[in-house]
């Protein structure tokens, strides 16, 4: 440990810490462009110059290790002058096309200019023209004129994605960021280069011109794209709903969590939110026996329960299969368990559907299991492997033979896990098929009743990731149409069946869950927000336990 | 019964035409006079075949609009009273004219016609009674609307009109003490005399304070600016809030009829009514000695014309005041009525009585 003094604040830091990190711990922000905590240090942007006593010149805070007794000043006249000079150089050839730049509003060139520079341009020369609006990958647009050559993206491609697509070629004012000729920036994590770009050089093709960033609100959430459970912020547009064709969720951004995804997320997760505002969303409870007809929740609940009770009374409890989904939150699954298993006394409950094609995976963030809550479902014991009932495959087989008469399917498109004709034969042989989920799919097309469930951005709850870390999602936008969170749907069905589900908020469910389920016992609800809580110190589940076909 | 039904109907028609035409024309006068006072032109757009008639058609356009407009009634309104209230209002404003003399006697084919619709020997009391009823239309209309704002307006109207009713009565006691009669025709005839042989013995010279008090109170009774707290159409909203179409039109008309009424009473009590200076029943007898012989019918016509012009002058004066002064605040109205007008009226009676005793 070494003691350093930064702007009069004395702090003790481990040896080898750089000045910029030490300042951060002391609560002092030093401006930076090239420095990123997740990347190697290069010290090329020179904006982080600070004055260190007994050193003849200003030093870069990002590359200077803090040493015992060091006294640093980040706010002297000399430092401010140096920052202004650096800003002036950075802006020499910057096109200042902020009005059309998507980065405007979250641009560090703008921010530091407002904070530190505020000078008038002294340049009369024409600005150097470089390529603009260049599509360098499926997700990324490059504007070389705006680039300040901080090389964050280059280092990201070298060090994090290890795919080496980007380089800085030529020198002087002709130096230009380009992908290697003949390649494009198409690695699985390319979207992160947009996040780390401090200026508007790299912008998002998907987000391009949809709205302006200052119209967006931010809600903490968890990526539902795979079992990693990357921490994300949902950026949603509440104020100007007419923008971007009325889509409410504008983009997802990774949220720092040192134990899960650090600063990153994969492109599949980043752009995997389109289903939230898709046309395929189910808007109201629908009866699709004969002619399709929308109904109220009250009608739907009483009709479904009447039919379900009929099936149970004629054919017995063994004749009903419930297929839950690892896309549902712990709360949803717990209420489902309470309703179907404890309340109705059903035996055949499962959630795992092995996909026909194995999901892509790598050894960084992408997991083959594309569900966010497989571990949670398992811990809650709602699977056939944990209970004694039939697996989904067995249920479909039994359904085909009409041993099962009613199926309650949540979220799953069964065609992803089974041959189409198997599913069709099984479902058409049923007396009652209820589908519950946010979007229509080939399974919902065969259901007698379709119930709209809220999408992940529309509800509050918790997911348990592959390493059994419980993390929270929050309601970012109000549920579309009549849709409700899954547990609320189960609650209204339970009310019809006179089964007590005395929960009003997701928090109530979670409290009951921690009281009843051994694995979750003692989890504080308040502690889940932010980084989440690991159930058993981040040990991953053995791969063999997850069903990946 | 000295007059035939025909003659009574004739007089009735004359009085109604007189009053209603004045009421109608006042809507035009109000627009044009205010415009002239404010260096404007005033309403001049309504035209028939491109002929604009300096804006006179606006009154017709108003009438057409009010008759054809939906007469809206709020769902909770007291249906019967709500419909009746404007009629009450306009009715009591109109019947006051029954006792106003607009001329002396006209000899027509041997019949002596009293140019007064109802020769009532308690004319002044009748006027008080009628004026006292006028507030009912306003208050009933406001209450029947079942609208809090309208009701508040109605309450302001009731408070104002009842307060000023007292001062109204007291302010003319002085006149009556001098005239020694409450028959309006007699009052007018009393004013036919001359002081010092040349100054007409009009009430205004005998009772200047009484005249100012009466005019003030009279204007207050019409509920027009500066005493329009009950209506306050521009901002505070009044008793006629829920009225539209002709219901509203009748309230509007009431104000104008009352204006004519006040003008007529003022003329009758203080300006010699139909009297023309130096005009005797047989012609002019000037104080400097000249005489002009006139037939009885000519005298009658001169008297009616004289009365009309005096009324017109007071209409003009009321209009001028209405477009000159801003509105009094409610508390100012009350203070003025109770703390100034009433005591001064009472003092006026005492002083008048004292003077009468002294001069006898």
């Amino acid at each position, binding site marked *: 440990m070494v003691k350093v003094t930064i702007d009069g604040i004395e702090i003790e830091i481990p040896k080898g810490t750089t000045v910029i990190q030490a300042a951060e711990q002391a609560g002092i922000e030093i401006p930076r462009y090239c420095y990123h905590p997740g990347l190697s240090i290069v010290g090329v942007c020179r904006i982080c110059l600070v004055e260190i006593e007994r050193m003849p010149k200003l030093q870069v805070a990002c590359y200077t290790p803090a040493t015992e007794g060091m006294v640093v000043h980040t706010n002297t006249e000399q430092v401010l002058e140096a920052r202004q000079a650096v800003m002036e150089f950075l802006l020499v050839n910057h096109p200042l096309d902020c009005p059309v730049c998507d980065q405007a509003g979250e641009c560090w060139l703008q921010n530091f200019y407002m904070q530190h520079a505020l000078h008038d341009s002294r340049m009369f020369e024409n600005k150097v023209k470089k390529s603009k609006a260049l599509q360098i990958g499926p997700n990324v647009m490059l504007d070389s004129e705006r680039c300040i050559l901080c090389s964050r993206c280059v280092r990201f491609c070298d060090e994090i994605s290890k795919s*080496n697509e980007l380089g800085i*070629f*030529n020198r002087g004012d002709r130096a230009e960021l380009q992908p*290697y000729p003949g390649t494009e920036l198409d690695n699985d994590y390319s979207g992160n280069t947009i996040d780390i770009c401090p200026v508007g050089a790299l912008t998002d093709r998907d987000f391009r011109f949809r709205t302006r960033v200052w119209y967006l609100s931010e809600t903490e959430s968890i990526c539902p794209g795979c079992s990693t459970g990357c921490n994300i912020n949902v950026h949603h547009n509440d104020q100007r709903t007419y923008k971007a064709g009325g889509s409410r969720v504008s983009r997802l951004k990774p949220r720092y969590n040192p134990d899960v995804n650090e600063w990153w997320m994969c492109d599949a997760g980043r752009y995997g939110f389109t289903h939230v505002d898709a046309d395929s969303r189910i808007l109201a409870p629908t009866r699709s026996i004969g002619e399709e007809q929308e109904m109220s929740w009250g009608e739907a609940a009483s009709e479904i329960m009447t039919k379900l009770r009929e099936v149970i009374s004629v054919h017995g409890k063994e004749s009903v299969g419930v297929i839950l989904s690892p896309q549902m939150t712990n709360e949803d699954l717990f209420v489902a368990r309470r309703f179907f298993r404890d309340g109705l006394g059903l035996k055949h409950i499962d959630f795992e559907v092995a996909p026909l094609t194995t999901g892509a995976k790598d050894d960084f963030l992408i997991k083959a299991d594309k569900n966010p809550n497989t571990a949670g479902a398992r811990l809650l014991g709602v699977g056939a492997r944990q209970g004694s009932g039939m697996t989904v495959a067995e249920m479909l087989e039994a359904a085909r033979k009409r041993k099962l008469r009613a199926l309650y399917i949540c979220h799953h498109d069964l065609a992803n896990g089974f041959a189409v004709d198997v599913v069709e034969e099984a479902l058409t042989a049923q007396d009652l098929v209820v589908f519950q989920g946010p979007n229509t799919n080939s399974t919902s097309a065969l259901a007698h009743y379709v119930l709209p469930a809220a999408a992940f951005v529309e509800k509050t709850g918790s997911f348990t990731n592959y390493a059994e870390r419980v993390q929270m999602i929050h309601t970012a936008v109000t549920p579309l149409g009549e849709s409700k969170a899954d547990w609320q749907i189960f609650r209204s069905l339970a009310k019809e069946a006179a089964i007590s589900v005395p929960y009003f908020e997701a928090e109530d469910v979670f409290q009951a869950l921690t009281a009843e389920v051994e694995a979750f016992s003692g989890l504080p609800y308040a502690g889940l927000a932010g980084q989440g809580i690991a159930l058993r110190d981040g040990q991953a589940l053995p791969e063999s336990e997850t069903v990946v076909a | 019964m000295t007059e035939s039904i025909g003659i009574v109907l004739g007089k009735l028609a004359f009085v109604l035409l007189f009053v209603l035409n004045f009421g109608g024309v006042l809507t035009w006068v109000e627009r044009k006079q205010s415009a002239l006072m404010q260096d404007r032109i005033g309403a001049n757009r309504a035209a028939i075949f491109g002929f604009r008639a300096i804006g006179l058609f606006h009154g017709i356009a108003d009438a057409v609009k009010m008759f054809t407009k939906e007469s809206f009634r709020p769902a909770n309104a007291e249906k019967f009273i709500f419909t009746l209230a404007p009629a009450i209002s306009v009715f009591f404003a109109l019947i006051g004219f029954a006792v106003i003399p607009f001329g002396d006697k006209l000899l027509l084919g041997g019949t002596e016609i009293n140019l007064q619709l109802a020769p009532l020997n308690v004319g002044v009391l009748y006027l008080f009674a009628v004026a006292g009823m006028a507030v009912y239309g306003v208050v009933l209309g406001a209450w029947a609307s079942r609208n809090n704002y309208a009701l508040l307006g109605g309450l302001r109207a009731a408070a104002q009109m009842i307060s000023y009713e007292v001062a109204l009565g007291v302010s003319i006691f002085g006149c009556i003490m001098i005239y020694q009669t409450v028959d309006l025709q007699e009052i007018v005839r009393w004013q036919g005399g001359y002081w010092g042989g040349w100054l007409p013995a009009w009430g205004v010279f005998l009772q200047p304070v009484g005249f100012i008090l009466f005019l003030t109170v009279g204007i207050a009774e019409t509920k027009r600016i500066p005493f329009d707290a009950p209506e306050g159409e521009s901002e505070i909203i009044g008793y006629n809030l829920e009225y539209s179409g002709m219901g509203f039109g009748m309230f509007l008309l009431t104000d104008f009829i009352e204006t004519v009424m006040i003008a007529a009473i003022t003329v009758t009590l203080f300006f010699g009514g139909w009297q023309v200076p130096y005009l005797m029943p047989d012609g002019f007898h000037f104080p400097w000695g000249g005489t002009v012989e006139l037939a009885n019918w000519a005298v009658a016509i001169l008297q009616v014309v004289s009365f009309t012009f005096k009324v017109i002058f007071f209409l003009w004066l009321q209009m001028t005041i209405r477009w000159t002064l801003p509105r009094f605040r409610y508390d100012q109205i009350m203070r003025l009525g109770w703390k100034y007008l009433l005591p001064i009226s009472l003092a006026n009676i005492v002083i008048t009585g004292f003077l009468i005793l002294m001069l006898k």
Partner: protein
Amino acid sequence: MSKVAFSQESLSEFERIVAQYPERRAAMLPTLYLAEKEFGHISPEVEVYVGELLQVPAIKVREVLTFYTLFASKPRGKLHFQVCRGISCDLRGCTKIIEHLQEKLNLNSEETSADLAYTLSEVECLGACETAPMMQLNDDYHGDLTTETVDLILDEKK
């Protein structure tokens, strides 16, 4: 992309160079010199090959290559005329020399003849002002040029 490779001789030279540096990638510049000498210019294939030799991604080779202006990334003629246009040479009439060469070689500045015989380029001061006007022909300096001496050199080298 045709596979390129160093000759045995160059390869041993490369091994000798790499051995001088603590890190393989530090030998980038000498290796690029070597490659330029061997292949005439550094084509994309050569970039990849050099990257393989130094165990770095080809893009890193390209970054270095484009940073230095004197590496040839395009084919260059057998005779490379680099006429100095520094201030001394300019005063002493390098413009005439350049025009003469352009005429003689039938080339514009910064062009290479189609048969890869000549390349003509104008360069900044080569540091031989005492012999201005001068030029560099491949690795040799020629000073005190006149159109006649240029013709002589040309004849000699043909």
